[in-house]
Each structure stands twice: as C-alpha cells, then as structure tokens.
C-alpha cells in the first residue's frame, strides 16, 4: 500500500481529549430527571426450586416503589448473549427464574426513590425454596447421576444446533477428518495431556449499568454500557414484549467491555421497571455483582492426544474439550467452537484430526464472551503441548512452529467445518507474517542466549518461553456492519456507524478509513457511534470484527460518497469524471490543474442546481475472516523456594495487516497482554463449598497494577491483508491468547516443571516443583 495519508498514522484518538478532560459521558452520567433506582437481590443458594418470594419486608422499606421477581414478573425464554439472530446460544433463561441455578443469580429487583432504599429493599427480600443437589464439577456434569440443571425445563436452542439439556449439554462441537486410528498407528510416539484454564472476570472499570428515560413521545430510551446496542434493543424487546419501535438504545462512551458487555443484562431490568412505572430509572451493578452475576471467561478442560513421527510430522491429533458454561448457556456453543476454529487451523498440516467439544451446565456463575473467546482457552493447552512435543523431538520450539503453521496460499479444513452455530466458511490465507513475528520476538527476548540456560541467582531460576496464535477478523457470512455518511457545506462529513467504540478506538480507526478514502484531514470526519435511532446497524464490538468488517463498510460508503463528489465536480466544471482526481479536500482536473474545493462542491450540491445532499450508506458482510497472527514471549524468574513466578519481560510481535493506527494497535496488544499475564498468575475465582464466590472484590480478585508490570515490548509488523480495508486485519483479541502459555512454557524452561492448570499461583508452582523432586 503506497501513498497513504491518514491510514497507518498514529493520529490522536478522536475522543481522547474529551476523556482526558472529563467531558466525555458514560451511561451512568446521562442526565435524567428524577430517576428511580434499581438494586438487585441475588440468590444465596446454588441450586433450588423457589416456592415463593416474600417481598413484604422489602415493600415496607421507605422509598421502595416496586419489587420484581419470578412470582410477579413473567418473561419468555431468551438468551442474554448479545449475538446475531437467531442466537447460537440456547434460550434457557427468563428475567427471573423459578429454579435458581447459581449463587449470585438475579432473583429480584427492587425499585426505589434512592439507591440506598433500593439496596435495603433488596436485602429484605426472602426466598422460600427447596434446595436441590448442586453440580459444581463440569467434568462430572455429563454423568448419568448428576443433577440436571435444565433437564426438565422448556429451554431450547433457536438454531438447529446440538443442545441436550437432559444431559447438561449446552453446546457440542464435533469435527474430524482423516483416520485418527491410522494416524496414531503411524506415529513414532504419542503425547497426551490434560490442561485446565480457569474462570475470570473482565474487570472493565465501568460496572455494567443502564439509564432509562422516556422521550417526548413516550418511547423508552436506554443509555447502556454495552458492546451491542442493536442486539440489546432486540433482546430487550423480545424479553419484555415492548415493541421494538418503542425502544431506542444509545451507546455513549463505554468504560471498557472486553466481551463482558456483549451481554444484555442490566438494561433488561432497567427497561422492565421504567416501562411498568413510566418513570426514569437507573440501574447499576455493584463491583461484587459484576463478579458474581455478570459474565465470566468460561473455564475449560482440554485433553490433547497427539501422534508424532520422529521427523516432526504430526500424524494425528485428538482434542477433547469440556467447557464449563455455568448455570446458563450464554455463548456456550460459540466460545467452544472458537476453541477449535481459532486454534486448530494454525497447525494445518496435521494429517488426521478429531475434535470433540462439549459445553456443560454447572451451578456456577455464567460464562460469556471474553476477549480471546475460546482461543485463549485453546492456546494455553495447544502451545504447552507443542512445547512438550518439540522438546521430546529435541528440536527448538520456534523451529517446530515454523514447520507446522499455516502459510499464505494455504487453507485448513477446519475453516469450512466450524462456524458459529452454522457451518464455517472456507478460506485461503492471504497474509501471514508469523515467521517474522517469531524471529523478531526471539531477538527481543534473547531466545538464543536464555533458552534452556537456566541462569540462576540463589533460589531464582530464569527461563524463557514462547507461544503463537491466530484469531479471526469477524464472523464470515454472519457479522454485518453498516455505515452512512453525509457531506456538509463546509466540506466536512458526518460518519454514522453502528460499530461500537467501547474504548478500542474504533471511532478513530473508522474515521481514518473514511478520511483516507476522501482525502481529507481526520478532523473533517465527525463520527457518531452508536444509536439505534441515528446510526445504521452493526452487530457490535465483538469477534475482532470492527476494523475489518465495519471498516470495509465505511470504506465502501466513503467510496460512494467520493463518486458523488466527483460527479458533482464534473457537472460543476464540465469535465468528464475520468479526468478528475481527489486532492486534499478538493477535486483536481488532472489536465488543466483546475480545482474545486469540497466546500464548493458541497455548497453546489446543496444550494445551486439539481440540489441533493452528497450522502451514501453501505453494508458489508465478510466472506472470509483473515486471521491476525502473533508470537509472544515471556522471560520469567521462578523462585524455587516460594513458587512465585515473576514475569521480567514480555514481548509481543503481531501481524494485524496494515495497522490503521499503529499506536492504537499497540495499545490493544499491551492491554491484552497485561490482562493475560494477570489471568495467568494472579486472577482467580474462589468458591466456598456452597458454590458462593468468596473473593468478589478487587481486594481479593487481584488484577495487575502499575507495580506489577514487566518490561513490555510490543511490535506491530508492517503487513498487508489484501481483503482488508487498506490492508487491515483485526488486533483487539489476539494479544490475550499467549501470555498464559508463554509463561507456562517459560516456567518449564526454567525449572522443568509443567503446570497444566491455571492460574500459576505460587503455592501451585511450589507443589509442582516438589512433586517432581
């Protein structure tokens, strides 16, 4: 790509000054008149049949206006997963369920004149229930004698996908090619191990919240901290029976999402209360409720059995995943399918392959979308397993990866086989600089000097480890994005997108694409996202789709606007369009050098003759999902007396195609990396015997702060994806996939102990060191 003016430049994020100055507004900041407040009552039992809810004490609390629960509020079955329609997730929940299935489940909502009264009311709700045996172990979920969470309910899957609640199976993915037995028979040796990834909270700093008010015509306006405003409107309408045309969802600035806000939760209850009482309502989860009652990263058990020949060929692989969906099946199928579809194609030369994956119900907090979306769960085992295999072969891990990874011009049968609730889409790789990622990263981490050297300093031993990954760029033939643009008389443009900037910088990236196409400075593009009344449809911020899918929609839209500009300029100057070119904010006659400015063109179209507004809209659905690639490296010091693992340095090298804004791309990777490191080492959900989370606060759920950062090096390579807008692929998710496996591989490099279960807490590592000794 040559001669780019705007794309490829680290321009300032368009909303950043407002965020730095505190003028930007989040959902809970919206000014609404005389609101009522909503507080949630949560289940204190993991599994029980509710007989009644005694709300009398709650209603006696001064200021309490109403109490909602399963015995006075009905709703149809739906899924809270903010996905395309019909959703690939089962319809297995109601607003309030009479069978409660985990500690933390929302069993009541109290509406009051003040938040204090609402909370007091929520605390006064009494549940009358008979306890049922709880199921906490996902690996026992499918046993014949295990409690069945949804077995006798009317839950169903709206898409024709495997869904067997009578077996606790919330989703199933089966796939194979070749002949596994033959493959294993041909192997010189077989490696088989089981790995476990754990549950985690997104920890977006802004808790889930929504504000509801009525516009002058009595329509319900929901200002929501969401990644999926259009899905939010649809699901609210479905769950509450409010006509869609009576609901407007506005996404203001969002205080982080990471997948957690790809879920329709708080706005359901805000809408319920507002609609019934025709009063404005604010609803916000407490931090503790975000931990227990919003969504989490699905834990996964991955068993991999691989047959290898002495020459390094992988003759067979059998991967078996059990994913803990928690009490409800939000994203139960699709996170699981991504654990295969975003992982297995990376090594596309495996001769015979079988994948068996099941998502199962347990009486624990619900899983959901979380940055990485299954790939993170898949790459932890995959990279450790490959590290193990390369060691047994006596070859360098990096060389082993290079021998096996997918390359330009190649494909994988997995692409076609596994989609998201549907078949997948076949694709051929058009850009892959994974070798360069590996080489550059190896240099940055000093692989040659440190790998296998076990440099010691007293009880501390140093190791380095690596891991590689790919992701996708949207869900092909599923994710759709639209954009519209109009030209103003000063030559500026309004860009309306449904694409949902949740802090990722997509308003900036999409504006850069529009500005590049129209050859105007960035400030001439005025982006607006997202508002179901004002902006066109977009599925929302997920699946690493925005830059690629929404970006293509914006590109297409801007090209249509450009064509109109040229045609008006042609009419104005009497010059055929083919003799005209775009200059900066103007159209130039290539022969005469004559120029008309965008402002003149816009004014001409608006005021002079054959008036019309230069404007266009465009939609785009990907027919492929070009994967970004990454190689990530950890240098760790392991304290062999305490088991503590300290990441000294972390290197990420990413091929995300042409970075539309390199600085923002780096920022996406940096953030994903530190989240990934703290996921690997310190974050964890702790439960008591009753299935109640015992650390639902930042005091005991430890995420990384400034004191914990290792030296971080992030490199975004020059690359180009032919199908992407200006050569771009996605970048937001991939960086979180490899911190855990790179660290685990580094720990092995240091001390020869492999940790199969996350997180790598000091006590666990120490125990592993001793059990080896």
């Amino acid at each position: 790509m040559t001669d780019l003016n705007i794309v490829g430049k680290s321009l300032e994020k368009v909303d950043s000054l407002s965020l730095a100055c505190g003028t930007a507004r989040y959902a809970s900041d919206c000014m609404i008149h005389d609101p009522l407040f909503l507080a949630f009552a949560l289940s204190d039992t993991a599994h029980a049949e509710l007989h009644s809810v005694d709300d009398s004490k709650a209603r006696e609390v001064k200021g309490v206006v109403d109490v909602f629960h399963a015995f006075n509020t009905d709703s149809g079955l739906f899924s809270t997963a903010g996905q395309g329609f019909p959703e690939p997730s089962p319809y297995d929940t109601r607003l309030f369920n009479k069978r409660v299935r985990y500690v933390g489940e929302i069993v009541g909502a109290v509406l009051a004149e003040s938040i204090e009264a609402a909370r007091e009311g929520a605390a006064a709700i009494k549940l009358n229930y008979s306890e049922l045996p709880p199921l906490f172990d996902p690996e026992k979920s499918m046993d014949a004698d295990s409690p069945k969470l949804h077995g006798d309910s009317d839950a169903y899957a709206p898409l024709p996908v495997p869904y067997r609640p009578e077996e606790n199976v919330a989703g199933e993915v089966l796939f194979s090619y070749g002949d596994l037995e033959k493959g294993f028979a041909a192997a010189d040796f077989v490696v088989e191990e089981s790995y476990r990834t754990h549950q985690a909270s997104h920890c977006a700093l802004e808790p889930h919240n929504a504000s509801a008010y009525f516009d002058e015509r009595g329509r319900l306006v929901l200002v929501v901290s969401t990644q999926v405003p259009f899905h939010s409107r649809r699901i609210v309408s479905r769950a509450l029976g409010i006509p869609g045309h009576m609901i407007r969802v506005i996404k203001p600035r969002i205080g982080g999402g990471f997948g957690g806000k790809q879920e329709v939760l708080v706005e359901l209850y805000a809408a319920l209360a507002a609609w019934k009482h025709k009063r404005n309502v604010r609803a916000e989860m407490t931090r503790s409720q975000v931990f227990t009652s919003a969504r989490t990263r699905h834990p996964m058990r991955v068993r991999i059995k691989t047959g290898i020949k002495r020459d390094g060929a992988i003759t067979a692989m059998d991967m078996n995943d059990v994913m803990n969906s928690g009490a409800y099946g939000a994203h139960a199928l699709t996170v699981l399918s991504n654990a295969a579809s975003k992982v297995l194609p990376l090594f596309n030369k495996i001769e015979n392959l079988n994948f068996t994956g099941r998502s199962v119900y347990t009486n624990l907090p619900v899983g959901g979308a979380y940055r990485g979306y299954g790939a993170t769960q898949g790459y932890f085992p995959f990279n450790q397993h490959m590290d193990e295999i390369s060691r047994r072969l006596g070859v360098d891990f990096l060389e082993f990866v290079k021998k096996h990874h997918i390359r330009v011009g190649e494909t994988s049968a997995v692409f076609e086989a596994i989609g998201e609730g549907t078949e997948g889409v076949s694709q051929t790789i058009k850009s892959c600089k994974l070798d360069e990622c590996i080489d550059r990263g190896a240099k940055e981490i000093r692989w040659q000097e440190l790998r296998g050297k076990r440099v010691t300093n007293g009880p501390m031993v140093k190791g380095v480890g690596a891991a590689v990954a790919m992701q996708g760029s949207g869900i092909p033939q599923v994710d759709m994005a639209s954009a519209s643009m109009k030209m103003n008389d000063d030559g500026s443009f309004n860009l309306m997108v449904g694409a949902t900037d949740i802090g990722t910088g997509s308003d900036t990236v999409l504006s850069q694409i529009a500005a590049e196409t129209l050859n105007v400075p960035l400030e001439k593009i005025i982006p607006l996202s997202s508002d179901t009344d004002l902006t066109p449809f977009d599925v929302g911020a997920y699946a690493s789709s925005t830059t690629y899918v929404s970006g293509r929609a914006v590109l297409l839209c801007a090209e249509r606007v450009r064509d109109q500009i040229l045609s008006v300029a042609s009419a104005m100057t009497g010059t055929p369009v083919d003799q005209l070119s775009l200059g900066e904010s103007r159209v130039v006659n290539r022969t005469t050098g004559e120029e008309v400015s965008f402002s003149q063109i816009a004014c001409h179209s608006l005021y002079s003759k054959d008036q019309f507004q230069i404007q266009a809209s465009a939609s785009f659905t990907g027919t492929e999902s070009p994967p970004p690639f990454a190689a990530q490296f950890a240098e760790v010091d392991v304290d062999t007396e305490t088991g503590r693992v300290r990441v000294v340095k972390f290197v990420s090298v990413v091929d995300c195609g042409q970075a539309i804004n390199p600085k923002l791309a780096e920022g996406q990777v940096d953030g994903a990396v530190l989240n990934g490191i703290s996921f690997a080492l310190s974050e964890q959900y702790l439960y008591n015997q009753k299935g109640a989370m015992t650390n639902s606060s930042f005091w005991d759920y430890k995420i990384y702060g400034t004191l914990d950062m290792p030296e971080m090096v992030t490199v975004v390579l020059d690359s180009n994806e032919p199908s992407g807008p200006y050569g771009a692929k996605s970048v937001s998710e991939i960086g979180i996939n490899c911190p855990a496996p790179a660290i685990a591989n580094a720990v092995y490099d240091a001390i020869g102990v492999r940790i199969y279960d996350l997180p790598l807490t000091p006590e666990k590592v120490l125990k592993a060191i001793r059990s080896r000794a």
Partner: protein
Amino acid sequence: MKGSFVVNGRSVEWSFEPDATLLDVLRDNGHPEVHRGCDEGSCGACSVLLDGKLVNSCQVFAASSTGKDILTIAGIGTIHEPHPLQTAFVETGAIQCGFCTPAMILAALALLRKNPNPTDEAIRSALDGNYCRCTGYVKIIEAVRLASRRMSAHD
C-alpha cells in the same frame, strides 16, 4: 446535613446524608467526571485531590471533607485549554476507554507537584492505586514521562 467545599476553585454549599461519600456527593452535584468503579477503594477511578492529596473519593465521608479544597479533572484544564498532562495522555495514546483517565491524570499531577522529574519507578509507585484494564499502563507511564519533561521545561 449541609457543608461547604471548594471544588475546582469555586465555593459551593451542598446538602448530603451524613453517611454519604465524597464520591456520591460529587456525582450528585454535577461532577460526573469523577467515576465510580468499585466503591471500595481498590480501583482508583474515583480519585480526586483533597487538599492536594490523592484520595479515593469513595473512601472519604463527605462530612469529613467540608471546608476542604477538592480538585477533579475538570479543575485542571478544559477541552479548550487542556493541561499538559491531559495533552500528554492524548498524544501518547494512553487513553482507551478513558474511565480511569481522569483519576490517573490527577494521580500523576499529585506526583509531579511533589517530584517534577520522577523516575519510572516513582511513576509506577504514584499510580499504584489506579487500575487500568485497557492499556497495560505502558503508554500511561510514557504520558507521565512526557508531561514531566514538558512541565519542567516550561518552569
């Protein structure tokens, strides 16, 4: 109860409940730039400067802050006339979702007032109570470094 405060240089008198936190009172009185992230003193999103010291406003009773000087992000610069820290955060790409940003900038300001040329270690230490889940802090540290250079050059 009632109490007067000096908020961003302006004297105000507000009524509030005796158990209200400074965060509640600020947000109830037109200061949504102070963000609520956890309400338990552990995320730092609600930090303000109270008599020049960085505090979690969710961990301060409003009643105990009467008569005191409170600085929020809106008091250090405006969108039309931003403070060098604000522009440094913008230029370095230190802002993603921005929810932590106002408090993070105030934490940096408290540091630079005390220590105009901090080491990276001092920067990390001064920001240790302010979580950011978006950036990995890399560019935030860079922003404080940049602002420090610019502000000392200006002096």
